[in-house]
C-alpha cells in the first residue's frame, strides 16, 4: 500500500469512538504500518458531535485528515454522516449506522441525509448496526465493531481480520473479547 489510508470515525460522544479508533490503530500497527490517530476529549464531547481520525501507511506525518481525502468514513450516528462526509470524495466508502439521536439544534431526516450523501460518493451504505447488535447480541454498544466487520468483509479496509481480532484482544479487557469478536463476525451475514 503506497498511499496512506485515512479513516474518519464520527458519531456522538459516548458511542465508543475511541474504542473503535484503538482497535483500528492497533490492527494497523500489528500489520506493520506506521500509524497516527487523533481524538478529542472533554466536555464538548459529552453527547456532542465528535470525530476521530485513524491514518496508517508506510509513513504518516499529520494525525489529522484533510477534507476530501478520507478512504473510509464510519458514522456511528446517521446525522453525523453529514459531518463525516466533508472528508469524503467520489471514491470514499461511507458506512452509516442506521441510528439517530436528537441534536437539540435541528435534526436531519434519513431521506435528506441519503440524498445529500449520494451526491458525495457512489459508495454510501446504510447499515442497521445498532438494531442488529441489539437483536443478536443484546447490546448496541458494539455497533462500531460491527461496522468495522462490515468494512472488513466487503474489502473496504486493507487490514487482515486476524489482526483486527488480535487488536481487540490487545486493547480491551478479556471479558469483552467474545462479544466484540461476535459483533465482528456477525457483519459477515450482511455482506452483499
Amino acid at each position, binding site marked *: 500500500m503506497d498511499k496512506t489510508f485515512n479513516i474518519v470515525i464520527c458519531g456522538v460522544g459516548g458511542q465508543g469512538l475511541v474504542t473503535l479508533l484503538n482497535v483500528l490503530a492497533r490492527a494497523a500497527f500489528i500489520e506493520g504500518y506506521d500509524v497516527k490517530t487523533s481524538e478529542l476529549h472533554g466536555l464538548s464531547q459529552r453527547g456532542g*458531535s465528535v470525530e476521530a481520525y485513524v491514518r496508517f501507511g508506510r509513513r504518516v506525518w499529520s494525525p489529522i485528515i484533510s477534507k476530501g481525502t478520507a478512504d473510509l468514513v464510519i458514522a456511528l450516528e446517521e446525522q453525523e454522516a453529514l459531518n463525516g462526509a466533508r472528508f469524503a470524495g467520489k471514491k470514499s466508502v461511507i458506512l452509516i449506522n442506521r441510528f439517530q439521536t436528537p*441534536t437539540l439544534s435541528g435534526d436531519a431526516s434519513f431521506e435528506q441525509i441519503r440524498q445529500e450523501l449520494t*451526491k458525495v460518493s457512489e459508495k454510501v451504505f446504510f447499515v442497521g448496526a445498532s438494531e442488529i447488535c441489539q437483536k443478536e447480541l443484546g447490546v448496541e454498544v458494539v455497533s462500531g465493531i460491527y461496522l468495522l466487520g462490515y468494512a472488513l468483509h466487503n474489502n473496504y479496509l486493507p487490514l487482515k481480520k486476524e489482526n483486527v481480532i488480535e487488536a481487540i484482544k490487545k486493547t480491551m479487557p478479556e471479558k469483552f473479547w467474545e462479544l466484540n469478536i461476535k459483533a465482528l463476525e456477525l457483519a459477515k451475514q450482511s455482506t452483499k
Partner: protein
Amino acid sequence: MNDSQKTILMGNEAIVKGAMAAGVQFVACYPGTPSSEIGILFSQIATNNDRLYFEFSTNEKLAMEAVVGASFSGLRCLAAMKSFGVNVALDSLLPFVYTGSKGPAVIVVADDPSCHSSAQSEENSRGFGQLAHIPILEPSNAQECFDFTCLAFEISEKFNIPVMVRITTRVAHQRGIVEFKVQSSKYKVSEGEFVKDKNRFVTMPPRVLEMHQELLDKIGKIREFATQSEINKIYREDPSVNSNAGIITSGVSFLHTMEALEMAGLDIPVLKLGFFYPLPEQKIRDFIRPLEKVLIVEELDPYLEKEVAAIAKDENCRLKIFGKNILPEVGELNPALIAKAAAELAGVSGYEAPEPPELSSVKHVARFCTVPACPYWRVFAAVKKAIPENKAVFGGDIGCYMLGAGPPHNLYDFLFSMGSGIGIAHGISKAAGGRQKPVAFIGDGTFFHAGLPALLNAVYNKSNILLVILDNRITAMTGHQPNPGMGKTGEGESSPEVKIENIVLALGVKPENMKVVDPVDDFEGTVKALQEFYQKNEVSVIVARRICALLEKRAKR
C-alpha cells in the same frame, strides 16, 4: 530491568512513560483537558508505590508549590496542567525560575488551540517563555512526548532550572508508535530532605536582582545547549537543489507541514525547532542566510515569526518573511491550509486543496448525561421553576454545569474562568447597588479550587449574591478525579472528607442563609429553597448535593 518496548501510545501516556524513565519521584497535577490523562495515569502508578508520590492538588498554584518544595528537597518532580492552569500557578512559577530547581522539575502544559475542550480563551503558553524565562520544549508526536520529557529532566538537572514541555490538543490526544525503555525507578520518595540554603531559596531583594541576572546568564548557556541539540533539525534538505525558500516550524505544525509538502508535491527544506525558548539562534541564522523567503508555520500568535524577523534584520535583511499574512492567527492549523501557504511561498500556481462537498451542517449539542440521568437536569429545572429568568443575572463557572449555557437551558448571562462566577456576580451586585440579584453556580471541585477566597470576599464586602454549589462529590468533567470533598487522595488513600457547608459557614455566611438540598430526591424542596433564598438581601448559599450519576453507577458495579 531495562527493556526496550514498542507500542502505540497517546501523547499524554508517552509523557508519563518519559517521566518514569527519567526517574520521577514526585508528581502534582490539577486536571484540565487536554492534560487530564497525565494525572489519571500517575495516580494509578503511585497507588501502593513507595517510589512515586502523586497528588491531585486543589489547584494548579498548589501543584506548582508542592513541586517547588519537593524540588528544593532534592526530588525529581513533575507538575501537569492545562494552559489556564499556568495562569493560576504563575505567581509561584516566576520566582521558581529565579531560584531555580534543586531536584529537576518539569512542568507539562497542554494548550487547546481551537478550544475543543476549553472556554475562556485560546491561550498560547509559549508566551511564558518570554515572560518567565522558562525553557520550553515542543514535542510534535507521541515519540517526542517521551523523548522530550526525558530531555526536559536532563536539562533541568544540568542547569538547575524548571523546564516546560508544551503540548497542544493534537499532540496530547494524538496516538502513534513509540519506542521506549521501561525502567523501575532507582529512587525512593522518602529520599527527599530540605537542606537549608537561604541564599538560594529566599527571593527577598536585593538578592532577587542577583537571581534575575543569574537566570539570564543561565538562559544564555541553555541557548548554546539548544543550538547544539539535535532536536532542532532540518528536514527535506537536498544539497543538490538550491532552494531559495524555507519553512521554520515546531510542535504539531511540523507534522502538518510535512504532510502539506507531500500533498502539494513541493521540495522546500524545513527547520523543525524542538526548543521554543530559548531559541537556537545560530541554527536559525544558518538556515535563513541563503534564503530569499521563509514561511513561519505556527499556531496562534506569531511569536516565532517576530523572533525570526529580528534575527533576519542583521543576518539577511532582504529575507521576505511569510507567516500570519497568509496563515490564520485564530484556531488550529491543518495540512490543507499549510499546503496553500507553501504553494504561495514557492510561487507555484495550480495547487488546489480538495474542495469538501457542500452539505447541511448538523451539530449534536453537548448535554448532561441522560443514561444514567445527571442530577444537574433536576437542579436546572428547579432553577427555571423558582427564579424569574428575565430578572435575575446568572453566572456560570467551569465544570460539567457549563452545559447550562447551552440548549435546552440557555441559562448563563456570563461565563469566565475557574471560580470567577462568584467574583463577577459580586461585582454586578455592587454595581447595581443591590437592585439586581446575581445567582452564581459553582461545582464542588471548582469551589475548592478558587471559590473560597471569592465567597469570603463577597461576604466580607456585603454582597447580595445567591450561590448554588453543585456538589456531585467528584471532579467529574475531566474524568472523575478525587477532590477534598470526597475523602480520597490521588493515591487512592482515604482522607478526612471536607464538608462544604462547614467551609461556607466558616467564611461568614449566616447559618440561616445556608441550606443543603438533594435536587433528585427532594426536587420540590430544592425549588422552595431557591424561591426563598432568592429573596434574601445577603450572601446566601444553597448546596445542591447529589452524587454524579456516572460515579454512582460505577460504585454499584
